[in-house]
């Protein structure tokens, strides 16, 4: 089966550009998450792929087949909506077999397919129930089964977990991912929850202001964010402003080295980012050669989150958070104590301070 390709796909609503010219490839059999804050254009992008929104410019292709102008009811990509959009006037089985009924499939065939899908989503025996009798999680499974009934080329999900409570959401993320892997269907999920995207996706498209900021596997997105926005949106990060000085970053009296060297000309204003779990905490006198690449700090707040301990510190360049796990919690920490925060060179990302662009 071929990939789904977007070529310079753009969407304007009046004078407002909601999705800027976007080139993306969704590989066959992979689950891609469109991740971003509200209003970043991810749902509009998904709706254009589904055929529910006409693009202002650009093309959508499956392999070499151009489907840009193919209406949604001919395109027939299975879609799960945020509200699930189940038909309340039909029982669960009729909801699932809706696409088959539209095709005029015989009743026995519709029933068999619906029951098969109900078993797939672990709802066997629920076929005769009314939609109103189902819980949130069950509704979501029915919505998934319904979208899969027509064996779509592409499976689209618009914030499918947002109507579920936190515990159920976690369960369904794993369940959906396992189902997708079993069926091997090209899947695109819209979400604003980075944890959800990290749990489920083979590939994440981080979107901001109608643009795809970064595309890549979750590990890469997390550890090698290309823009400050991505570093900020995915997980937590300490941001410290500085100026380039001979391939390192000058932050007040300290010189922070990075690996590889920051490729900026001298005196460029930059921001360094370092994840809290990568940031190291040392004693106040650890400012020797091995303990360099950091800033003296004062502990202002400590909280224990079970698996990790979170330490908030004040430095001359602003607040810094350090997360320490397991054996790393050697120091007895108390607010007011002096300490030293160290940013390991290999854990640092450097971004230009004014323009959000690749480091």
């Amino acid at each position, binding site marked *: 089966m071929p990939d789904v390709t977007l070529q310079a796909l753009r969407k304007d609503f009046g004078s407002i550009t909601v999705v800027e010219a976007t080139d993306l490839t969704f590989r066959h059999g992979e689950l891609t998450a469109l991740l971003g804050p509200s209003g970043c254009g991810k749902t509009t992008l998904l709706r254009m792929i589904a055929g*529910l929104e006409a693009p202002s410019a650009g093309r959508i292709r499956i392999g070499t087949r151009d489907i840009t102008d193919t209406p949604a009811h001919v395109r027939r*990509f299975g*879609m799960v909506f*945020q509200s699930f959009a189940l038909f309340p006037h039909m029982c669960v089985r009729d909801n699932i077999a809706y696409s088959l009924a539209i095709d005029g499939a015989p009743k026995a065939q519709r029933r068999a397919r619906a029951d098969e899908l109900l078993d797939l989503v672990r709802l066997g025996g629920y076929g005769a129930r009314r939609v109103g009798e189902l819980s949130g999680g069950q509704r979501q499974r029915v919505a998934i089964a319904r*979208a899969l009934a027509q064996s779509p080329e592409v499976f689209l999900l618009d914030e499918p977990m947002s109507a579920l409570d936190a515990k159920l959401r976690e369960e369904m993320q794993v369940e959906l991912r396992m189902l997708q892997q079993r069926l091997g269907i090209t899947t695109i999920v819209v979400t604003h929850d980075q944890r959800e995207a990290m749990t489920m996706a083979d590939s994440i498209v981080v979107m901001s202001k109608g643009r795809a900021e970064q595309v890549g596997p979750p590990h890469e997105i997390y550890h090698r964010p290309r823009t400050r926005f991505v570093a900020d949106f995915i997980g937590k990060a300490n941001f410290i402003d500085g100026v380039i000085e001979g391939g390192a970053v000058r932050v007040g009296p300290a010189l922070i080295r990075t690996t590889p060297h920051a490729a900026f000309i001298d005196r460029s204003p930059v921001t360094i980012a370092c994840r809290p779990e990568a940031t190291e905490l040392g004693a106040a006198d650890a400012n020797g050669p091995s303990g360099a690449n950091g800033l003296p700090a004062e502990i202002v707040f400590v909280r224990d989150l079970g698996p990790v301990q979170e330490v908030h510190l004040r430095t001359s360049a602003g607040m810094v958070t350090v997360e320490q796990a397991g054996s790393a919690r050697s120091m007895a920490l108390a607010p007011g104590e002096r300490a030293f925060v160290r940013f390991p060179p290999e854990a640092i990302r450097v971004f230009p301070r004014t323009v959000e662009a690749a480091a």
Partner: protein
Amino acid sequence: MTAIEARALDAAAEHGASVRRPFAWLFAAIVIFLCLVPFLFVIVISFGEKIEGAAWRWAFDATNYRRFFVGADWPATISFLYLQKMWYSLYFAVIAAIVAVLVAFPFAYLITRQSRQAQTLWLIFLLSSLALSEVFIVMGWDILLSNRSGLPMVLRETGVTDWLKAEGYFDTLRAWGLANPRDVRFKTSDFATILTMTYLVFPYAVILLYPGLSRIDPSMVEAARTMGAGPLAVVRTVVLPLVAAPLFGTVLLLFVYLLGVYVAITVFADPAKQTLAVSVYDSVRGATLDAPFGSAQAVILLLTAGGFLGASLWLKQVAERPA
């Protein structure tokens, strides 16, 4: 909440209820006075006796009801004149109500697909059109359909009438009562009557259908589309079933309203097809001044409407009962 607080709340609620109670009684009294008392009067008068050349007197006599069903001269002769009028009341009201809903449904559906602002503007326009009186609307259609200056004239002058004659469609129109030997003729026809009645209730139909249609989750329509349903299939399989109850209710309400239409019938309906509403008015206010017989007809019309409403509610309950 402590026990003291709970008691205080109970006392406050009790006080509120005691304050509200006289208002409830007053409201009930007003409703009884304005609705029930006139209706009781009509029922009582319907059993009254007409004094020839004068008004009427109190009595308890079923003559007026007998006259309605079998005629005044029964058993010497039998006449179903008023049953026939009742039939035309039902005939015009049912057809006009259904046509109005059929036309209003796509219109209201399209309104719900518009932007919020456009929807508001349409609703304001429709609400303001309700201010037009029946007399004004009928006058308008009277001119539009008149033989000399209305649509027949337009068809004649543009050559459509001649074309209809040449193609042989004119004879069909004549057979339908929509043409005289020379020209297309709309006035005094079922067509004109139903058209005007439909026009009268069209804004009501849209306004009654609008809430149900606007409550439909747009993602349901989109979900149907992603599952292969074209626009018509979406309406048939998703939209119509979701608004079946409001649709049914709207037809019923318009039907009951249309049973009482007077001006449109007197102007456009064939004299042989006058309805009970016209007959009631003629009896009460016309040459005979026969209030008791007019009241009897009104009571029967009201009971018929009530019967239809009751039967419909019963049917709805039966339909909604789980199998």
